[in-house]
């Protein structure tokens, strides 16, 4: 068979800025004092400080998860929990400090904003440095802010939903995030408003041993629609960084919400994220989740289907290369009648990388007429790569219709042969097959992102058939 390799072109993201110009870089380690000082620096109301302290207690009490990826190398005392590179979130790129602006220029964010985004947020280390929203949307009452500002400007909506979908007690890393959170996006879309272009946030870790703990809260009111995209990158260091976000989504009656993530953290980032959505009557929530980078990712976006006819969907791809473990999946919890959900997961492992699908499908008692399907496909590109599938299904209602299917395979020699007999080189044949395998994912992305993703996963073939 062919020896093959797929290389992720990382050079574009691997540049580092000096931390000398930072406004604030605290000391390493976590303690009650560190948390109090973060809260003080931000000038938060006292309920938030209490919330952080409560979360910290939970964090200390909870053991590390004994299932899933190996997290033993994380040293919580060797991480910066708060780093601030500029004074405040600017509304114009011109006002963003040069060193930070250059970063986002290199990543092509301002360019993208002009072309096809309705709003952009950019987070650098712990704080959001740039934020903008198209004027007509602001006039219709759409709120798109960094989460810290939202806490001050819109305390009512904020307090109503913050920490309600994912309380700190949910898991150890949600507790950690709740204790030290900083930055992230806050979006509110008023009833009936349909945001026609995506809103985007870009998260960048720059310095070594930084922990990024952004907190995102999106509330889409009745009949409204929005598409939110987040991208993540970091330069490569020899020691680990930690990214532990909490993302809470609320889709009220008949709302539509799509959340797209393209995660391309460098190969030394631990990416341990909790994401969950509540979907009420007739609402639709879609997670489009791409995991390309990081050393270890543990992420299981969930949809709690709370109201009749709500629909949840997760479409994810994972690429596990050398030294990577992508432990991802989806949770669909059906709590109301006539709710539907669909999970499609695709993974590609190569060069001893390991991809794991871990998912939960639950149909609660009383949730009649539920229909749900889960489909996992894994592609192993060489004989040292690994894949696991752990789908959990808990069905407590007799008239549910549930299916799960999974396949694992390698690229068939006959497929390669077929394409080569039509004039493709072996490299092209392989990349065509992998792209075809991922197509259900890429076709859901805005065109510019699909192109970017295809470029990111540049196929390189130097093998011979034997």
């Amino acid at each position: 068979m062919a020896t093959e390799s797929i290389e992720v072109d990382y050079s574009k993201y691997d540049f580092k800025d000096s931390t000398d110009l930072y406004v604030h870089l605290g000391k390493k380690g976590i303690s009650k004092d560190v948390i109090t000082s973060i809260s003080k620096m931000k000038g938060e109301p006292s309920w938030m400080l209490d919330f952080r302290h409560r979360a910290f207690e939970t964090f200390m009490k909870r053991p590390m998860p004994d299932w899933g990826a190996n997290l033993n190398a994380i040293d919580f005392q060797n991480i910066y929990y708060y780093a601030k590179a500029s004074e405040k979130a600017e509304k114009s790129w011109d006002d963003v400090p040069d060193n930070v602006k250059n970063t986002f220029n290199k990543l092509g964010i301002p360019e993208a904003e002009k072309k096809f985004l309705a709003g952009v947020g950019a987070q650098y280390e712990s704080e959001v440095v740039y934020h903008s929203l198209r004027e007509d949307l602001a006039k219709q009452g759409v709120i798109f802010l960094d989460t810290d500002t939202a806490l001050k400007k819109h305390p009512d909506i904020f307090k109503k939903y913050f920490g309600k979908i994912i309380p700190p007690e949910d898991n150890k890393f949600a507790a950690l995030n709740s204790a030290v959170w900083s930055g992230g996006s806050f979006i509110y879309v008023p009833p009936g408003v349909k945001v026609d272009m995506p809103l985007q946030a870009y998260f960048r870790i720059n310095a070594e041993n930084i922990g990024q703990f952004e907190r995102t809260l999106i509330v889409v009111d009745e009949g409204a629609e929005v598409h939110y995209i987040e991208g993540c990158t970091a330069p490569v260091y020899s020691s680990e960084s930690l990214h532990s976000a909490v993302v809470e989504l609320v889709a009220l009656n008949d709302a539509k919400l799509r959340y797209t993530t393209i995660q391309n953290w460098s190969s030394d980032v631990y990416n341990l994220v909790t994401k969950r959505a509540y979907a009420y009557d007739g609402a639709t929530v879609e997670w489009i989740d791409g995991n390309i980078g990081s050393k270890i990712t543990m992420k299981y976006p969930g949809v709690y289907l709370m109201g009749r006819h709500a629909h949840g969907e997760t479409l994810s791809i994972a690429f596990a290369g050398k030294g990577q473990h992508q432990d991802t999946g989806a949770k669909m919890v059906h709590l109301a009648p006539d709710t539907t959900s669909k999970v499609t997961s695709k993974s590609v492992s190569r060069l001893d990388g390991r991809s794991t699908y871990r998912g939960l499908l639950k149909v609660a008692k009383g949730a009649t007429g539920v229909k749900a399907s889960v489909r996992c496909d894994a592609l192993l590109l060489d004989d040292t790569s690994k894949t696991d599938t752990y789908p959990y299904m808990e069905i407590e209602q007799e008239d549910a219709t549930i299916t799960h299917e999974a396949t694992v395979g390698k690229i068939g020699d006959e497929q390669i042969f077929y394409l080569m007999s039509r004039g493709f080189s072996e490299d092209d044949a392989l990349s065509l097959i992998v792209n075809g395998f991922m197509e259900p994912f890429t076709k859901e992305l805005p065109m510019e992102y699909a192109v970017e993703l295809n470029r990111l996963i540049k196929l390189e073939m130097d093998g011979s058939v034997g």
Partner: protein
Amino acid sequence: MSKLSLSLVDAGHIDGISSSRKEPDWLSKVRRTALGAYGELPIETSSLYSNYTDAKKMDPEKVFLDTAPSAGAPDLLKNRLQELADSGSAYAVQIGSTVTHVHIPDSLASAGLAVSSMTDALGTHPDMAKSAIESVDIREDRFTALNTAAFDSGLFVHIPRGLEVGDSIHLVVCLPDGGASTISRNIIHADEASRASIVQEIYAPNADMHQAYIELLTSDVKPGAHLDVTTLQMMNERAVNFSTRRTTMEKDATSNWYFGMFGSMLARYRIDYDLVGEGASVTDSEVAFGNSEQCFDIRTCINHKAPATEGRVTEKSILRDSSKSLFKGMIKIGENASKANAYLSGRTILLDPNAKSEAIPGLEIATNDVKATHAASVAQIDAEQLFYLRARCMSPKEAERIIVEGFLEPLSRKMSYQVRAWISSLVESKWSRRPLAINSDEELRKFVEVEETRYNEDAEIEQHYKYR
């Protein structure tokens, strides 16, 4: 020895078993070590399943062990014992912790076929018994440890090299009247190029406590051997059944296992197949049929440890009333198991609003030149199928019954027509809520006639896999 609650099992109890049976020293030591592990291990050792176990539904306070010889066979077994005596095939009967009957036809006995109690086997086949007992990793499961520490009975089967046993060998286990539980260590050893089929029947009379049959069965299938094992669990719905099984398959060995889980209030099965020899192949078919409050906790794992091995697990549950099934399936394909071919499926039909099903069909795959596919589904009876049958003048109940039978029937196709007839008759009894038994009466003869004319096929599995 007097009656003892399972929660009070201690070194004194196990030493008592050892000394009353004049067991060799090594065995007393193994028992002691295992007792220590039993005390330390959690009820579920795998973090994958720590929230998914029903083993705790057995209350050790309510389980009583009694190693005194049993009084005799409960009434429900009388007809069956007579039939076995008339049949002339090889069989063994264990009532409680006492093996009461063993019969081996002369022709098979002279060919070296051994069917005996474990205690006897320690004398007649000491090396085989020892290596089987020592092959078990007592730390892998709490109940493996319990069994190794405190087994008070068990059956041993050895099929010698090259021997082909035509008729099924029957292993009949029945818990005694009076409510005493039994812990059994069973061993099947199928030597090179042998061929045999074993039918295990498990019964329990009506009793008002958690009367338990706790079993550990290890099987060795040597190179080129073929072994079929059918377990028909027909215990009373108050009883408890714990079964831990590990089957080691060597080069080119083949094996078919059928589990008919019909009885007991709680059946906890932990089934492992180790495919250690190139070309080894196993087919595992499991049927759980739940009425009232019955609960089935099934964990099946196929470990592919050699190239070109083949494993198929098909589990199907029919759940009525408030019954529950929990299916934890796993395919593990190791780094050197290239060309392995694996299939795993769990399918459930829920017939009543309070029935409940959980399924975790897992895969762990460490090399790429393999075929592995799994599927699971939970649904109610297909409305279209129901409509079709009703359009042909069947009552809704009749139509449901036919669909359920059609759902379960394909799983027993690898077995002999006689065994298939028993299974059909048990499904029928289950459907009409009759007591479970497999007496060869007029009723059964009808099923035999049907099964004789059926063809063999594994269409479901063949059609499933396609590269995507």
